[in-house]
């Protein structure tokens, strides 16, 4: 079992580690983690991401992330990247529109051939405590 404190946004093998974490462990992670199946339906939505977006976990689980939860990512920069490749580890600067307010974020798009899941990690530049 990994200590959640070990997990950082930029860590090298983070996707493999995330696969071993349960929902409770994900809630302990400081940055936003969205765990999706390979079709984009949300499997886990951690506390940090829920705080950022203002969306309840229950409202989000089972919904399609790119279409229903965060349609602002439904373009070639984000959603298309997941569709186009089996292996994905990319970091990009983006602007989310949480509660309609534009919020600069750093995104990390993760997908591995051997995993059932794909991940979107979200880090805000300004940490809100």
């Amino acid at each position, binding site marked *: 079992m990994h200590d959640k404190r070990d997990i950082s946004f930029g860590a090298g093998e983070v996707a493999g580690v995330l696969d071993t974490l349960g929902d409770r462990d994900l809630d302990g992670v400081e940055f936003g983690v969205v765990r999706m199946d390979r079709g984009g339906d949300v499997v886990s939505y951690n506390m940090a991401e829920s705080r950022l977006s203002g969306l309840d976990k229950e409202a989000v689980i089972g919904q399609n992330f790119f279409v229903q939860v965060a*349609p602002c990512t439904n*373009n*070639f920069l984000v959603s298309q990247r997941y569709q186009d490749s089996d292996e994905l580890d990319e970091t990009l600067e983006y602007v989310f529109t949480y*509660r*309609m307010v*534009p919020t600069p974020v750093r995104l990390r798009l993760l997908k591995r051939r051997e995993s059932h899941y794909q991940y979107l990690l979200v880090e805000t530049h300004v940490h809100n405590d």
Partner: protein
Amino acid sequence: MSEHDYQQLLQFLYRVPVGLVEVDAEGNIQLMNAYAGAALMPLAKTSQSQNLFDLLRPYAPDLQRYVAGYDHPYGEIVSNERVQLPGAAGASETKMWYSVTIERLSVDSYMVALSDVSAEVEREERLQEAVNQEAEQRGRREIAASVLHDIGNALAGLSTHVARLLGEPGWRELTELRRLQELVENEAEALSRALGAKRQEALSTFLQELIANFEKRYDELKKTTNDMARTLEHVSETLSLQRQYAQEWVSGSRAPVNLVRLVEDAIAMQRSGFEKRSVRLTRNFCEGTVLVEGDRTKLVRVFVNLLKNALEAFDTPEGDNEEQRWVDIAVERVEGADTPLASVTIRDNGCGFDVPPESLSVSPSGSEQNTEKPGGSGMGLHAAKRIVEAHRGWLSLSSEGCGRGVTAVITLPRAEEIS
């Protein structure tokens, strides 16, 4: 408002399938829904710009100026202006058209709405293209009709001249020479006395030869003029037929047409080809009219094409044998399986071809095997086949082999005869 109601309202605005953005006077984005985010973020490239005017400047450079120049405290600034942006969904190279509306809500607040009108723009473009093409086609037909008209006028002038030449009673010089000869004959004795018998005879012979020469030249000229008149008549006839077809082409008529008439018109248009090559033409036409429904202009082109092919098949070494050249044309009523049909069969004894008929695909690329004549492209055949098929008919070509001619059969559905 409860937290739940607030969330619902937020979700409603967030997910509305139209981009909504609120900016201040400088263009800084205050609020923006998901649709706007998805459309605008790809424009930011590397920076995380949150200024709408910066984002849109490369695609709609005037927007900021419109906003800056608007001095009323509220109201519509831009209404449904079309802007082309790199596609939000799918590949980055697909462009999308958005309709942009900007409304000033208060002194430092502007609402910008974006909606995707790509499909509409594409439809409009397609329609415009079709309209342009039609106009161009129509223009070409009108030019063709007007050129034919001008040539017709010029020919009419030429025909008048030739007719006048033919109408002339003969050369005055010749008449006077004959009179002179008569005089010489009548005064033979006196002249013989004055000039001597030898000289008188030489003068008489000279005059006779001169007259014979003049007569010969006159006959030759008369014959050439006659030939010219006949050629002119034929060209005028062809031209008047072509003009008639060109005019119908412009009006695009599609009515029952008499197949026998069409074939006769096609023959008339190719008459000089028959004459030039001394090809004997035989007709086996059934009695009365044979009606088919279709475009007269296009169908006559098919028959002209096939007749031309048949005639040009005599221009090759294989087609140029000692036998009498002939083309036989038959128009018949045929009873089809469930519809009455009409067929036109054009047979020739020209060069023919060796390839079995089933492999004779009438294709536009036209390899040498597809065409009877060297240098031919098979293009005429392809066009003919397409026209016949567009009339729910079919065209077949067969030959018993090299040097043994070709049989072309065009079959078309017959229109019901009106009794």
